[in-house]
């Protein structure tokens, strides 16, 4: 199962738990599973977070696949000037 790590303040919404093993095979499923476990995180997932899958950062990519051995980080969304 992919290893999922919450970066920064997101773990405050999951009772301090920053690392998960989830069965998600896509970003959409990942968000669903996290929201089911910790409803407080759902609004933040909807507002937008970046998802790094095996080092590659994706933003607003619900259908992006997640491999069974992937390492996934949830990050604050990134923009620029």
């Amino acid at each position, binding site marked *: 199962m992919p290893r999922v790590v919450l970066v920064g303040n997101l773990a405050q919404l999951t009772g301090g738990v920053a690392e998960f093993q989830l069965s998600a095979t896509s970003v959409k499923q990942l968000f669903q599973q996290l929201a089911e476990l910790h409803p407080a995180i759902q609004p933040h997932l909807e507002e937008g977070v970046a998802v790094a899958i095996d080092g590659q950062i994706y933003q607003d990519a619900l259908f992006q696949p997640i491999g069974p051995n992937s390492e996934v980080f949830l990050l604050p*969304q990134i*923009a620029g000037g």
Partner: protein
Amino acid sequence: MAENGTNGTNGQGYVGTRTIRPDGVDKVTGRARFGADFNLAGQLIGRVLRSPHPHARIVKIDTSKAEALPGVKAVITRDDFADQSSEFIPAGEMMMNYKDVVRNVMAREKALYEGHAVAAVAATSAAIARKALKLIDVTYEVLPHVIDVVEAMRPDAPLLHDDLFTVGVEPKPDKPSNIAKRVEITLGDIEAGFAKADVIIEREFKTAPVHQGYIEPHAALATVSEDGSTELWCTTQGHYIVRAHCARLLGLDIGKVRVTATEIGGGFGGKTVVYLEPLAIALSRKAKRPVKMVMSREEVFKSSGPTSGATVRVKMGATKDGRFVAGFAELKYQAGAFQGSPVQPGVMCAYAPYDMENVHVIGYDVVSNRPKVAAYRAPGAPISEFAVESVVDEIAKKLGLDPIELRLMNAAHEGTKAAYGPKFGPIGLEETLNSIKKTEHWNTPLRKWQGRGVASGFWFNIGGETSASLTVNEDGTVSLMAGTPDIGGLRASLAMVAADELGIPYDKVRPIIGDTGSLGFNFLTGGSRSAFSGSMAIVEAAKQIKAELCARACKLWEAKPDQVEFKDGAVRPIGSLGEKAKPMTIADFAKVAGKTGGPIGGYGRINAQGAGPSLGTHLVDLEVDPETGRVTILRYTVAQDAGKALHPAYVEGQFQGGAVQGIGWALNEEYVYGADGKLQNAGFLDYRMPVASDVPMIDAILVEVANPKHPYGVRGVGETPIIPPLGAIANAMENATGIRFTELPMSPPKVLKALREREAAAKV
């Protein structure tokens, strides 16, 4: 490689050559139309009444006298904007809250900074509009103000918002404060890291708020018809974002608002938000005539967003052989009057250039009575990385190590776990350091009062939603339409990609920027994304054209799909089909388009992913005048990883432009406030930006470590080059004077003071 300003290929295509800029002639002849150049018949002139107070409750606004003045056609205040609920949405640089946006474009309960819009008028002339502003009677209850970020964090500081409770702290505070948010990232065990350190350096730094300093002030021209259809021309980095904000703030359907981005005289992040645009629409809607509004330079400084000033504390530990073992930082960023400083990216970028096991960075987003900050090239990163790069230099000096070798020893590379979490793919920091090391510049001797400094920088880069189209015209030429304003060479870059993809000459592609009614949604030009994402959309559009042409060829030749291919600008028969069919170029298909299925075109609509970070290293030589404290930049070299430079001259221009803006940030630029909370230098005479005569020709070294996620290997390049100058110049100053400057800008009075204090201390 082709010479600058030719339209030749390099034998493999146009990408990587220095083609003529499609917007060049218009810009050098003055024909290009910027925001303030647009006019409509019967237009009114709009002007804004702004708060003279940095912090005041607005008790009453009486507009009756202004409305009665002949020639005044509309007056608007807070009453013309419905309040917005508290809802964060991703927009421009960072998350923004419409509850704050509506209050920033027009003050409601309070004026929160000098220059905050309080009312606006539209009149038949600028003179009448100005006179009308004087007739608006605003009753203020003046409140105590706070400007400095550290003072704003104190429990007894004047409070800007009664409902602002710090997010990110446990337990949740029961009292409001000016601290909007606390953020942090943690990697490894910081205390264990420091325990391994042989050398620990801890320093506090201060940086001043600086403005993006675009030459062209904000400008908007709006016209609203009786049925609500709205047209807006404005200077912006993202006309789709302007459309969304205006529609939301004014209760309009997005589909009824059409926004055209004019040519833009610089944005650098500062034109990712709205100021005049909703006011112009609201005035036009009320007056039933077009309304044109242009900010003065003073308004630009006082009322549009600079970037944050900050206080930063950095503590780094290294072993005696130069390995970084721990990095801590605490960042306090000014957000201006409303929450939303770029402290989050500042936190994430602080140690990103380095391969470190133990990192802990904390950041605070703090409001004070200043204009709300806006994005500025790599928002937040120059501040935190300046502090870290200064300390890295101190570590090198303390350990007697070459600063480039020390950075190489610790440089992030493919596979490094970034301090903010994921592992890096291929990145080019080591290549930039090695490039700088090999320059003649690095090895040239210096004289007394001269110093040399080096620093590196990191920025993420992004992709995002992008639409672009290619249309084959009747004669076989191609019209290219993009939906992100061209600030740094987008039109040339996309035209080159289209020419290469379709196998046609570059000068047969005419690139334009479409309005919001012409293409699907486009995120803005920002985050170093437009050439990266736009070129991916163009590749997609070209694919569609090639597929369509092949399909039509099959029908014409009565062939199967595997009997044709698109190659070198033509559909070609394969094998025996060649005996009865001759290759057909795009121009050939254009001639028979009507008979073979109609117009030919492609439409790339993507959410571009796969942006690769860009890292760079800068090298600077400077000279300090010990009599005046003036610092002269003698020589400057930038090396940065571009992945693949689509148009090398434009990429070099980005490197040079970023370096110059960083030089200004390091040496001279700052917002100066009086004790009365009012800005004292709201003009280019007193806000000292570098001009051409202040800087030498900046040498640019293109490093190209291909981004594997882009069809041409492209990385965004626009933001990284503003990051290293601050640290590189501070390091050069130390090299020149022996003094570690920790406060920006290192302006002549500060430099002179430091030199004199050292002189006085030596005499004691």
